[in-house]
C-alpha cells in the first residue's frame, strides 16, 4: 500500500470520527430536544409537579437550583478569585506555587460523589446543618472552586506584564496595581469562569444527593436551613423512581431539555465575554 493510499484511509477515518462525535452530540440534543420541547410551556416552568410527578411543572426544582447556584458561587467566587490572585501576583515561581497548582488540579479531578460524601459528613452531620441549602451550597462551592481558580488564573496571567511594570514605576503599590489595572483587564475572562460555573453547578447531582436534595416539597424553601428540590436530582427521580415511570417520561424529557438549555446558554454567554478581549 503506497503512502498516499494509507494517508487517505487514515484521514478518512479521522474525519469520520469527527463527524461521528458531532453526530453523537446532535443525536443526544436532538432526542431530548424533540421530546422535551413538546412538554415545555409556561405552565411547565412555573407550576409544581402534580399527580405523582406525571403532570404539572418543575418550578420548585428550578427555584432550588437557582438558590444552589447563588449559594455555591457566593462561597466559591470570591475565594477562588482571591486564591488565583495570590498564586499569580504574589507567590512567585517556586515550589509553593507548584504545590498549590497540583492541589488545585487534584481538587478538580475528585469525583463529584466524593464531594457529596464529604459534604454530608462535614456539613450535614458534624456541623449539624442538616440537609439544607447551606450544606448543599457549601458542597457545590467546593466542587466548583477549582474551575473558578483555574479560569481566574488564566485570566490574570493573560494580562501583560508591561501593565504591571508601568503601574509600579509610577509609585503605585502592588495592591493598587492589582485593583486598578490587573483585575479590570482580566475581568472579562474571570466572568467567563463564573458563567461556566453556573452551568456546572446547575447540572451536578451527586454532591446534592445527601446534602440538600428532596424528592418532593410542597412549598418553596424559605431559608438556608431548608431542603430544596433541584433540576438534576429531579430528572434522576423522574427517570428512575416515582409512581409511574412511563407517565413521568415526558416530564423527564422536559427537565433534561431545561438542563441542556441552561448549559447551552451559559456557554454562549461565556463565549461572548471571552471574545470581548
Amino acid at each position, binding site marked *: 500500500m503506497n503512502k498516499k493510499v494509507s494517508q487517505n484511509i487514515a484521514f478518512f477515518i479521522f474525519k469520520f470520527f469527527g463527524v461521528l462525535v458531532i453526530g453523537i452530540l446532535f443525536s443526544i440534543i436532538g432526542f431530548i430536544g424533540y421530546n422535551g420541547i413538546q412538554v415545555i410551556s409556561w405552565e411547565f416552568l412555573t407550576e409544581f409537579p402534580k399527580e405523582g410527578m406525571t403532570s404539572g411543572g418543575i418550578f420548585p426544582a428550578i427555584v432550588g437550583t437557582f438558590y444552589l447556584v447563588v449559594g455555591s458561587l457566593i462561597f466559591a467566587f470570591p475565594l477562588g478569585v482571591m486564591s488565583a490572585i495570590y498564586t499569580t501576583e504574589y507567590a512567585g515561581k517556586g515550589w509553593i506555587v507548584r504545590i498549590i497548582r497540583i492541589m488545585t488540579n487534584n481538587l478538580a479531578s475528585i469525583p463529584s460523589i466524593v464531594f457529596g460524601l464529604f459534604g454530608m459528613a462535614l456539613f450535614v452531620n458534624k456541623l449539624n446543618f442538616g440537609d439544607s441549602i447551606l450544606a448543599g451550597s457549601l458542597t457545590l462551592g467546593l466542587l466548583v472552586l477549582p474551575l473558578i481558580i483555574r479560569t481566574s488564573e488564566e485570566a490574570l496571567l493573560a494580562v501583560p506584564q508591561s501593565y504591571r511594570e508601568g*503601574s509600579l514605576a509610577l*509609585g503605585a503599590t502592588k495592591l493598587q496595581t492589582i485593583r486598578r489595572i490587573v483585575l479590570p483587564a482580566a475581568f472579562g475572562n474571570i466572568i467567563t469562569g463564573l458563567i461556566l460555573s453556573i452551568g456546572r453547578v446547575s447540572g451536578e447531582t451527586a454532591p446534592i444527593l445527601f446534602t440538600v436534595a428532596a424528592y418532593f416539597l410542597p412549598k418553596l424553601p424559605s431559608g438556608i436551613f431548608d431542603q430544596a428540590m433541584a433540576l438534576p436530582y429531579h430528572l434522576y427521580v423522574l427517570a428512575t423512581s416515582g409512581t409511574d415511570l412511563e407517565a413521568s417520561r415526558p416530564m423527564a424529557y422536559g427537565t433534561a431539555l431545561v438542563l441542556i438549555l441552561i448549559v447551552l446558554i451559559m456557554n454562549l454567554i461565556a463565549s461572548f465575554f471571552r471574545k470581548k478581549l
Partner: protein
Amino acid sequence: MIEAKNIDFYYGNFQALKNISMKIEPKTVTAFIGPSGCGKSTFLRIFNRMNDLIKDTQMEGECLINGQNIYDKSINIDNLRKDVGMVFQKPNPFPKSIFENVAYGLRVNNMGDKKFIEQRVEESLKDAALWDEVKDKLNKSAYELSGGQQQRLCIARALAVKPSIILMDEPASALDPISTSKIEELIHNLKNQYTIVIVTHNMQQAARVSDNTGFFMLGELIEYSNTKKMFLNPEKETTQNYITGRFG
C-alpha cells in the same frame, strides 16, 4: 544628583554588573550605550529599584539619590518610584482613556483633588508635546493613538507626578524615525526641569541628545565622560572600537 558606588548586581549566579561607580549631575541628560546584554538596562533599573521585581537577584554597593541610599531598609519604594519616573521600550499605556492614563499616577499617590488632577494632566500632556493632538479626545482609549503618540503619552504619564529624575529604557527603539525625532526633541526640552538618563543602542541618538555618555560592556563601565569628548576622542580602545562600529 545620582551617585552609584561600587555596584555589583547578580541574576542568580550570573554577575550582570561589576563594580560600577558613577555620578550623574542634576538636570543633565546622560546616555548609556553598549552592545546587547552589557548591563545598561539592568543598571538603569537600579535607580528606581525595578529590579526588585525579579526573583533571585542580589545587589551590592550603594546607590545614593540626593544623598540618600535608596536601598536602605527605611526607604519607601513607592515614594522612590514617584520621584524617579520610567519610560519603557515598548509603549505600555493602560487600557484606559488618555486622560485616565496620565491621571493614574496622581490618583494612586493621592495627589490633589479633581481640579488639580485636570490641571496636571493638561500640563503634562503639553510638556510631552501631545496636548494639541489629543485635547479633543481625552476620553478616548489610549489604544487609538499611534505608536509614537502612545510613547509620548507614557512620557506625559511619567511627568504628571513631578519626578525629579526620568529614566528612559530605549524609548524610541520601537518607533518610526519621525516619532523618534519627536521624542528626541522632547528630551531636549525637558532637560531644563528634569534629570534624564536614557539607555539607547543607537549611538547617533546618544550623540544627539546627551550631555554625558557611559559606555558599558559585559557588565563593566568602560568609559564615562562628556559626550562630545567620548565620540571625538575616546580614551579607551574598546570604546573607540565600539563607536567606530568594529563590533556590537
